[in-house]
């Protein structure tokens, strides 16, 4: 416990980590602000602006020419049987044309910027996990720490717990504030959100917190294995991006299941259905199903097994290898 507190202190004292957490908070604030702004209700000022715009449109030369052209040949514009009166009806600008704005629907936000924010948060936490371990190796302070606590497994676990707790708590706070801001806004605007949607948001945010926490933990474990921040980032990039591309290019059927992105989405969205063009179709088999449905459990298993393999390898090798 004492070592965990020391590592948590180290975690919150690192300037690079503080800056990345600040970036995560600003990002969440930006997402929330954009969502709230884009769905703001129409005000009297907006109506006045729209009416003024309508008047400008109506008095424009272009509108008058078009209207005259339509009235001279209404059927060309509005179909058979159309009259000159129909032209005025269909072409005269109306204020509502300029007041079209979508409403704040939290279920839509959950599928849109909610998921986007969680993925970005997880990415930031992965970098935080990497830099947390990488700094110890880069400065050589790992050997100094082991001169005070030589039980390497204990040191590894304390640092791992600190990374997980730090990343998960930070993500939980950020997501809570993000969703709270949107809930309050919806409440103020008199938009009711059903209990099912609220529950779905809570569950998705919880899974997002776990993804961020375990993502940071996985990145930490990999950095303890490779002992290099840049090396770890390169491996993660190769695994997530280049690896998926290489696998997709192989003549293997149904590799979409092994993509990191699909598994993360399945985990976050409680299941995910996607088109997998790599699924082989036999001619004459009466059609071919290339849509794949992945469950939350499948996503969790993929991510969990990957994390476990990296963590166990990292811990075992940290216990055995010489410390520079």
């Amino acid at each position, binding site marked *: 416990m004492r070592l965990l507190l020391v590592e948590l*202190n180290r975690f919150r004292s690192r300037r690079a980590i503080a800056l990345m957490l600040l970036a995560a908070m600003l990002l969440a604030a930006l997402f929330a602000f954009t969502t709230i702004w884009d769905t703001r209700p129409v005000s009297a000022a907006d109506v006045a602006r729209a009416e003024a715009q309508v008047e400008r449109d109506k008095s424009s030369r272009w509108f008058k020419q078009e209207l005259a052209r339509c009235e001279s040949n209404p059927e060309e514009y509005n179909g058979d049987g159309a009259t000159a009166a129909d032209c005025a009806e269909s072409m005269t600008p109306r204020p509502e044309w300029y007041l079209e704005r979508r409403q704040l629907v939290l279920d839509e936000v959950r599928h849109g910027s909610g998921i986007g924010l969680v993925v970005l948060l997880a990415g930031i936490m992965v970098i935080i996990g990497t830099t947390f371990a990488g700094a110890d190796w880069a400065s050589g302070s790992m*050997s*100094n720490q082991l*001169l*005070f*606590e*030589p039980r390497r497994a204990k040191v590894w676990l304390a640092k791992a717990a600190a990374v997980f707790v730090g990343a998960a708590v930070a993500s939980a706070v950020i997501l809570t504030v993000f969703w709270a801001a949107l809930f309050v806004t919806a409440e103020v605007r008199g938009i009711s959100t059903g209990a099912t949607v609220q529950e779905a948001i809570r569950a998705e945010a919880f899974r997002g917190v776990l993804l961020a926490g375990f993502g940071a933990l996985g990145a930490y474990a990999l950095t303890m294995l490779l002992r290099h921040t840049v090396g770890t980032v390169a491996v993660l990039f190769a695994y997530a991006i280049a690896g998926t591309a290489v696998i997709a290019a192989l003549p293997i059927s149904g590799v979409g299941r092994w993509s990191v992105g699909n598994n993360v989405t399945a985990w976050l969205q409680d299941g995910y259905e996607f088109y997998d063009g790599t699924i082989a179709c036999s001619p004459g088999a009466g059609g071919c199903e290339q849509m794949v449905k992945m469950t939350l459990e499948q996503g969790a298993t993929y991510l969990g097994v990957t994390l476990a393999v990296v963590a166990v390898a990292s811990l075992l090798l940290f216990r*055995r290898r010489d410390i520079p």
Partner: protein
Amino acid sequence: MSETVIETEGLRKEFRTRKGRHIVAVQDLDLAVPAGGVHGFLGPNGSGKTTTIRMLLGLARASKGEMRLFGKPVPRHLPEVMNRIGAVVEQPKFVPTFSGRKNLSLLARSIGVPSAGVDAALDRVGLTGRDRERYKGYSLGMKQRLAIAATLLKDPDLLILDEPTNGLDPAGIRDIRDMIRHLGESGVTVLLSSHILAEVQQVCDSVSIIGNGRLLAAGKVDDLVGAHGAATMRVGVADPAAAADHLQANGYVVTRENGHLLVDGPGRADQITRILAAKELYVHELTPVRADLESVFLQLTKDATISAGAE
């Protein structure tokens, strides 16, 4: 019989370089450091000193052999004795973006030392007042002082210092030397690895000299120096040429130096005077030439290099 604080038996460390070269850094090293006092650990660059220290402290795994600290086999029982050991291995290693105090506080908290202990350690190495500055802004000497302060957090029974005066100015070197001497006198066992042989001779009670990963000599500084230096005599005589002939005829190795003779051989001073007096050559100066630790070290390590080359 005094307790042995550090013991190694048949210690060996081999590893492969990235290019696949097989290197034996330490081979069959038997080391014994008695409790109390300052023990020098000497050897040329690449002789295996730091590797030995790193193995003792659990930072590197031994390929073969046994190690004991305070009688406990390590690395298995290292956690039981680590709180009694302070160590600086190679350069000081701290988090560069933290202040000196922050670095020390984190280490102190990991072993349950209160902040008063941090204050005391900082004060002891003269870093009070600079402790809230970032470590990366410290001079090499300040970094070295901080590393020593870290070792003092534990109030250790054994202090292992690898080149502790690197980068220090003369006043800093004197302070650290005094501190090491004081610690040695107060019952702490200090293992001092250093290249500055004059410093080792001034501070250490005993030394172990290694070369090519092997122990070449060990014992009290005076004994080692005496054993390697007592045979040379500086002789002053009116006719050095005649005296040299007579001594050479009696089996001595004689070299001339500024009108004096340097005489190496098996006999004692009284035999030299007798041989020369028999030929009516009367000695007006006869002084034993005391070797210093440096000459002993150079002689031993040169021999080790020659024999390693012959193998």
